[in-house]
């Protein structure tokens, strides 16, 4: 994976800003199939994550990869975030990291 550019924190709404670029997002797993996982972003939008998910998934999952469309990510890195996760706080983080404080992140 190309590690030269940092991955932008995104939620459902912000994903479309980074199409073609590296993003990271935490999703709540709704459904998992071979080759993709359907998840709910921290702002309650549906995101499809393509790639090879790990065999066992916890409720929350962080994925890092390239944004393919405004609701799809092709993920290279999958990390289980456990079952307890404060989605609200993460959502705020996404908003701040892409808004007021983006100079600190990207």
């Amino acid at each position, binding site marked *: 994976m190309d590690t030269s550019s940092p991955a932008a924190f995104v939620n459902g709404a912000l994903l479309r800003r980074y199409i073609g670029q590296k993003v990271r997002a935490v999703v709540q797993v709704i459904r998992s199939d071979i080759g993709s996982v359907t998840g709910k972003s921290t702002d309650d939008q549906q995101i499809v994550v393509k790639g090879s998910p790990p065999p066992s998934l916890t409720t929350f999952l962080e994925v890092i990869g390239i944004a393919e469309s405004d609701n799809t990510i092709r993920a290279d890195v999958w990390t289980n975030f456990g079952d307890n996760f*404060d989605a609200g*706080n993460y959502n*705020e*983080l996404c908003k*701040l990291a892409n808004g007021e*404080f983006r100079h*600190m992140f990207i």
Partner: protein
Amino acid sequence: MAGKLTAGAIGKMLSGEVSTDKEMMPILQVTELKLIQQPRKNQDSMERYKLSLSDGIQSQEGILNTTLNLLVKQGKIQVGSVLRLTRFFSNNVQFRRIAIVLELEIIAEQCDIIGNPLPAQPPSMYANTGPVSRNEAPPTAVPIAALNPYQGRWTIKVRVTSKGELRRFNGARGEGKVFSFDLVDADGGEIRVTCFNDVVDRFFDVIVVGNVYLITKGNLKPARKEYNHLPNDYEIHLDNASTIQQCYEDDATIPRNQFHFKDIGAIESMESNSIIDVIGIVSSISPTGSIMRKNGTEAQKRALQLKDMSGRSVEVTMWGNFCNAEGERLQSLCDSGLFPVLAVKAGRISEFNGKQVSTIGSSQLVVEPDLPEARELRAWYEREGRNAPCISISREFSGAGRQEVRKVITQIKDENLGTSEKPDWITVSATISFMKVENFCYTACPIINGDRPCSKKVTNNGDGTWRCEKCDKCVDECDYKYILQLQLQDHTGVTWATAFQEAGEEIMGIPAKDLYYMKNEDRDEEKFEDIVRKAAFTKYIFKLKVKEETFSDESRVKATVVKAERLDYSSDTRSLLEAMNKLRTEDANPVTTNPESSNYRSGAFISGIGTSGTRETSSLDVPRSEFGLPAANQVNQFGNQHSNESRPLGGATLCDACGSNAHVFANCPSFLSEPQGQHTSSVYGNTTGRNAGGSMPRQHVGSY
């Protein structure tokens, strides 16, 4: 001269063509004026003026509303006065037409009698008590203000604003039941209705708060002021002849609530147990707590601070259901930074560490009411109220219930915490960066002294027994208690603190005795180190007691860890987000810097924001990048992009000078000679203006 009066008006009123001011506002002259006294049980008799109104041709009898009595007493209304009736109602009583005058305009106070009016009806005395006319009830509704005991047949169109509980009682005539409900009409008049026994059965299920009803034919009795707090001298008692009919079409002219607001500042001088309405901005709200009542039942209560334009704030306590319904809504509004307007109707003033307002059974809470007062408050708040100083007339508990005062570590030194007479109690969010492992515990006396073990250090007698000086006894086995020297670090600085038994156990996760054995007896170095390592470099919320202590001419500020809690990232993050929001919205409303304000140190400061900025300007030598904060908590990394302000977080009416809850900063005894800056009572959104160059400890006025 006859042109002055509305000729023919009386004729029209007598014939029924004109029955209210909606049809006409006639100009009439007073040709007779008489005072009637209505005796009332246990209360002063009520005065009412009866008069004859003429249009130059005929005259008719009328009654003045008691609110107009003053005008008669002042002589503004006399025989001969020319008046325009702006609000009145002409009613049929016992075959006579009576005009009930609610509002009028005085055209001329003195005037010769115009024309030669013929009284339309032979004048007669009113009965002083006991109404009941035999006529039809008026087809249109009368205003509540027009109700009086002389007329038994009336109809009112009203909305129910509150409904009381069904209560049973045992009286002389056996068991009975009663319930009451309050009404408001389109003119804003209010009156309470009470039903007894059979009448309760008829109406209890019919009455629903918020609905509009047509109610007819009740008895007017004097209001019982101990129970009835409405501004009406009468109350209605319904009987079997009364009827209640629901209006399915809502009437928008009838308000939902009628308030008579008092300023929060006025509450201070009001008597305990009086009932008032109040409106203000909710500046903070605490979560629901439950307390045990004397009779063993649990009660839910929830406190909030309400502030208004009088510059005062008061604690409002909600009981019972209010905690959940309105309480939750208020909490979420406050959490998201929109401090709502709350109107309280019929709150009781109580005295307990200052004055407070509590809800009672018949209270009502309205969040964000659609009232002009609410809009005024909102505008004031946006303009200046948010940052305006506010004195709380409710002082907090002293002792128990100490609120969190969040600080960052450098503040301990910079603000000279602990140097005043009393110790400072603060909360910091920090990591243990170092732990002295050599003497992490001491041998303690286990003898129970009162309800606690003595815990004084015992000396080894050499033979395996231990002697305690305080208890003057020897024991075979001693306790081991923690005395951990810790180095606490956050992104601003480092400090040493000592943790004793309870805090020590929380941090290490293992009793002191076990750890001692592990190290000294079992010599299990590896396990020991493991435990130490686990405890260090974890983030906690520490409650510290900071006090300056003097040891043989040398004074040092020592910090004791009173409580150590693992940091709950989720809630801490949320508080930080809130703090940021607050900071942002305050940036949008800049307040002029006031050098006086530098004396003020309000409730809690946000760790990481504001003060760190201050530190930078005063050349702090510890760069933030060194601090090992967990990367996940990225929100912590900000801080100084914004101004050099300190913002209160969490609530407190802590006296900032000495940490006590018994008084506020302004009244702190340790502090009286200094210029008093602005000060707030609690919380969210109450802050002072910007401090010039940073948060100022009181000793450092102007030093930055």
